[in-house]
């Protein structure tokens, strides 16, 4: 039986140890974050119970831990609204660019998406502030959602473009051969073939929107005294509260 030379076995063991050490180093912060969140957050949840999710935040005069209901509802609604705005636009843009790759409008779409993806999300927030918030005269859930939709649009577009390009040419030909126009092929064939990708694209966009902070800084507001005040009124979001807690913590540090 063939036996590796000792030098190669030694190198193999050394590389294996290095990979294991780097993996541990890589995973440790993640485990630490999860542990801290579960330990501290879990304690609060156990003490407060489900009311932590349904109550308003505590005020200086209130007793008890209070809750994150405005932030939770605000995040959920803002993310849903954001993907309702951005996903259909991204989907149709991706379809158009795939079907008409050489049309000038396709080139415009590519430029627009690349521009959007390169803009820092804080700048998006400032843009929506200067246009929507100032026009409306207040921050709002709608403004926050618009800001999030601009940020998530490029991600959804890239994902859907890739999905459309993965449709086998034979299926396109089958659809066209039966006399379907492009819209018919989209409705009757492509949407069915891509339904898994559509769901994944929606979820990815949703997750992206849910966790993003900067787009909401100047647009969403900071509603504390109600769970939901309306789409055109101020709202709240979980990432904004995280910022606030960190800001408070920093002020309290010596």
């Amino acid at each position, binding site marked *: 039986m063939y036996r590796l030379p000792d030098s190669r076995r030694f190198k193999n063991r050394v590389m294996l140890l290095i990979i294991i050490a780097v993996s541990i180093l890589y995973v440790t912060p993640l485990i630490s974050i999860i542990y801290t969140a579960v330990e501290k957050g879990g304690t609060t949840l156990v003490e407060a119970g489900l009311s932590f999710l349904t109550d308003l935040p505590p005020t200086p005069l209130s007793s008890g831990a209070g809750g994150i209901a405005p932030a939770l509802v605000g995040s959920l609604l803002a993310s849903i609204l954001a993907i309702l705005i951005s996903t259909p636009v991204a989907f149709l843009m991706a379809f158009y660019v795939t079907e008409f790759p050489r049309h000038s409008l396709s080139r415009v779409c590519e430029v627009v998406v690349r521009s959007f993806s390169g803009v820092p999300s804080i700048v998006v927030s400032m843009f929506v502030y200067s246009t929507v918030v100032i026009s409306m005269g207040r921050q709002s859930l709608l403004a926050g959602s618009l800001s999030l939709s601009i940020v998530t649009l490029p991600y959804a577009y890239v994902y859907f473009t890739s999905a459309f390009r993965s449709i086998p040419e034979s*299926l396109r030909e*089958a659809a066209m*051969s039966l*006399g379907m126009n492009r819209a018919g092929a989209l409705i009757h064939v492509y949407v069915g073939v891509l339904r898994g990708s559509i769901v994944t694209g929606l979820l990815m966009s949703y997750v992206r929107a849910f966790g993003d902070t900067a787009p909401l800084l100047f647009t969403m507001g900071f509603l504390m005294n109600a769970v939901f005040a309306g789409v055109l009124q101020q709202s709240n979001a979980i990432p904004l509260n995280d910022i606030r807690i960190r800001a408070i913590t920093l002020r309290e540090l010596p």
Partner: protein
Amino acid sequence: MSAYIVEVEDLHLRIRGAEILRGVTLRVRRNTIFVLMGPSGSGKSTFLRTLNRLIDFMDGVEVRGSVKVLGQDIYSVNPYDLRRKVVLVSQEPNPFPHMTIYDNVALPARLNKVVKSKQELDDLVRWALEKVMLWDEVKNRLRNYPHTLSGGQRQRLCLARALAAKPEVLLLDEPTANIDPVNTIKIEESLKSLRDEVTVIMVTHMPHQAVRVADHVALLHSGVIVEEGPAVEVFMNPKKEVTNEFLRGAL
């Protein structure tokens, strides 16, 4: 009404500057099986896709000459309407994977509004599947998906789907190239029984297949029709040496 359902006159076709078809002229009678044969790369599939303007989806295509289907110049009619009457079945079986066997066959009937009721649709689906000798194999699993079928069954399903559209002309691009001999025979038998319902224009590079199914044949070589005529005449007494070589398998 003309006896010819397809009339092609001096058709020249270039794709990105390369000349693929060089002055093709031929006519196809109604309710016949017309086989266009020729070696690989002779332009057969391109010719087929010109008849229903699927070639429009390619870049850099230049077409010159006259192509009439059902008495009308194909460039004077709506291409989607044309493709509903002139349906193509590709070489590669391509049933829609997200639709059941039933829905695959029913889709073109629904889109083209060829039926008025659910019962008529059920009857049409059954008819189409019987025509391709697939009904007995799938009648108890119409709600299954095409991936449960073999390659040959999938190709027959595609043929049934095309028939359900009630086309005037059926274009078949080497329909048995990728399937087993048993299913090949079934498809060839199906084609012979379809003569009364539809005109079939089939492309093949296999002379023995043309011998088995064709009423009328033409040999396309390097973009030119070398010889054409009734199948028996061309096979028994080929006039051109190129035809002879093709039939012997030397091309």
